[in-house]
């Protein structure tokens, strides 16, 4: 199997995400965003790309361009937190300030998901974010919310691309590994 590319963004949770992926460590290539040259980025080397979490916003972190490159070249993509926000912005969603919520769990519910199929029950997940996607337009679909309506997961209508605003990698997200595994199962 070709390896999964993990894009690291100066975060203190990156290795937790790597550990949360349903692949052995030797099948994951970790690359800092600043070390990735999109001009020469050969997607044929990889099975999929995971755009990891991190501080700042997707534009300053240079991640919107990563999503566009993956979409153009047909590479499956899972965005976590900052990576999720990058996916939203690449397809026209607005990023807005919300009440900063870091290290706090929230119950969320998946609904009408294509890539995250079979997760319809309520999940308690750990959140680390100050910014949120507001009303993502088509071709994006919102497939999980908090009870107060914040976007917690998105999917592309046709492409194998999805994002999770929360941290499936946290010890405070008991079903996080199941949620991430569902995405990769959906690719098969």
């Amino acid at each position: 199997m070709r390896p999964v590319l993990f894009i690291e963004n100066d975060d203190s949770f990156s290795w937790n995400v790597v550990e949360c992926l349903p692949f052995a460590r030797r099948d994951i290539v970790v690359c800092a965003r600043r070390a990735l040259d999109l001009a020469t980025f050969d997607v044929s080397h990889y099975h999929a790309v995971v755009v990891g979490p991190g501080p700042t916003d997707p534009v300053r972190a240079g991640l919107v361009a990563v999503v566009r490159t993956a979409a153009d070249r047909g590479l499956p993509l899972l965005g976590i937190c900052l990576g999720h926000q990058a996916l939203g912005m690449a397809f026209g969603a607005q990023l807005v300030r919300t009440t900063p919520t870091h290290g706090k769990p929230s119950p969320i519910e998946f609904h009408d998901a294509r890539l995250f199929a079979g997760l319809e029950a309520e999940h308690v997940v750990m959140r680390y974010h100050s910014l949120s996607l507001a009303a993502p337009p088509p071709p994006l679909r919102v497939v999980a919310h908090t009870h107060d309506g914040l976007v917690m997961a998105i999917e592309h209508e046709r492409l194998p691309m999805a994002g999770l605003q929360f941290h499936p990698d946290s010890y405070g997200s008991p079903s996080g590994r199941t949620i991430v595994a569902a995405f990769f199962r959906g690719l098969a």
Partner: protein
Amino acid sequence: MKLSSVEESRSFALLGPGFGSGFGLDKGGDGGGGEDKGESSSEGRGKNDCLWLDGLSLLSERAHTGPRPSNKRAAERDPDSETQHAGTSRRTREQPPLGEPEPEAERLVTSPELWFAPYETPGAAARCYLADRVERGPLELDVAAAAAAVVPALAEQAFAEGVEEIRAAIAAGDVYQVNLTTRVELAAVSGSTLGAVSGSTLAALLCRRGVPRFFAWVRLPDGHEFVSASPELLFAYARRRIRVEPMKGTAAAGHEEALAASNKDRAELAMITDLMRNELTPICEPGSVQVVNPRRVIRLPYAVQTVSDIEGELLPGIGPRAVLAALHPGGSVTGAPKAAAMRIIGALETTPRGPYCGTLGLCRGEHATFSLLIRTAARTATAWTFGVGGGIVWDSSAALELEELRIKLGALR
């Protein structure tokens, strides 16, 4: 061993019970005296038992000069205490260059190594010292505790402004938590005048209500000196099993229920728990890093605090330097993400932290225990400075954070 005798030594480390018994793997929950459930090691030693490493020298220099003769006072030591002359088993090879893995044979030494890194020194550049002689026994507080005055008072205005700058950075998404600290000067009160504090009077003050778990009074060969009443373990390992115990969340002594109910304090600890999992993962076997206890209360004479317990199985060949490179400075004194938080700390704090928020460790063979040097005073040319701080999150307010600093200054009463 007596505080007055220690004071006379040129260079030494006097270390609290958490460093010696079981290398911190006994999960002693105590951070100081006055705690009800007590802490005694599996070997049945008392909770005030200390280790005294006398006559320190840098390991890299020791290889060239050989051991110095033992201090004369060794002959006058308490016959009941346990003394080792470490010279015979001391390793003579030079320390491996920075960044190289420590070969297994290098770790099979029987004399303890003292490791130290100030906050500003990268973990990979931590210094390692050996002692001429090691003594273990109950600490005798034969020096009157300093009645320490804090002069000048806490820089409240600057700290409050720092809290608001950090909250603005959190709102922008630039950082999740920043541990903001400040330093106060200490002076001894004698009658109506203020005088200089000596190391032994400060040590006596901090041990007055029982020797803190990771108490340390260290005078290095270069003259640097600090006294720590730390209740916090940075990491301990026994063979390949490693444990970390980040501490976040504080309330005044007796307010345990309020601390348990505080969502702000719970979130502070949760963030650093995830950060520590992250930092352990690349040095541990895949899948081995586990949060074994997400939140546990530590009772101190002046405060209640919360810690989590995270364990993992180290990869083969990982020694103290590689662990320090991964974990130091500890996430509980930086914030998260660590790189962003440290940049903000560098911009907001006007003086270096030095030993405060650094780490001090004792390694022996395949065991190591490293404390995080909070509740720590460092001697400068003119005074002792004591560091206090707290984790600033979105739910923080300047007033409540300043109250938390006052609670932590209670270690000096």
